[in-house]
């Protein structure tokens, strides 16, 4: 199913977890930092930034995380396998033209950007930036989909 998506974000809710999807607004070089090396991924306008919250929780941190990446181009950090901090990572992010959810990877440890850790209920979903929007497949009837508008306003006084 294709969902129109412009500047707003798409929230896909399961019963206990969610995915938040946004389109990249302009091309940039995304740095991915691992323990061993730094990689730079070319990201194009219309590619997707996806945040997964496998245990659910507040949506606002996911909104901020998406903005940190797609607006401020903050590098992604990849934890080494079996890192003790992995269990405390409650929001994970992936960037690319097509992203596939999996519940079979350890969160925060996977540098391949086409994969993102999810809960079991949202596992096996493919999200593709297409036709000015995003294709979600398969779209189960018990997923709840909402559009979200989000804007950061800063006032200095």
């Amino acid at each position: 199913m294709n969902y129109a998506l412009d500047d707003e974000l798409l929230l896909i809710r399961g019963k206990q977890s969610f995915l938040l999807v946004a389109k990249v607004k302009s091309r940039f070089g995304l740095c991915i930092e691992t323990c061993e090396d730094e990689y730079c991924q070319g990201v194009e306008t219309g590619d997707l930034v996806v945040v997964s919250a496998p245990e659910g929780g507040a949506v606002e941190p996911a909104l901020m995380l998406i903005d940190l990446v797609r607006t401020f181009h903050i590098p992604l950090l990849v934890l080494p396998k079996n890192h003790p901090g992995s269990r405390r990572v409650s929001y994970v992010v992936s960037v690319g033209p097509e992203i596939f959810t999996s519940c079979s990877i350890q969160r925060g440890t996977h540098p391949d950007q086409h994969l993102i850790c999810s809960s079991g209920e949202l596992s096996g979903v493919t999200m593709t930036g297409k036709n000015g929007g995003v294709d979600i497949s398969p779209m189960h009837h018990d997923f709840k989909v909402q559009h979200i508008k989000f804007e950061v306003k800063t006032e200095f006084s």
Partner: protein
Amino acid sequence: MCTVGGPVDIDIPPDRVQGKDYRCNECGERFKGIGKKPICPSCQSDDVAMA
């Protein structure tokens, strides 16, 4: 179904992600690029060549 925070069910070897070495023709930055259209992380130029 996986258990959240539990053991890893699929072990993907770290050498699966292999960046290619690039050099930016505009600023001279050397970096490992992944994906089809590498972009220089320093100056955001796509005028890059494999090093």
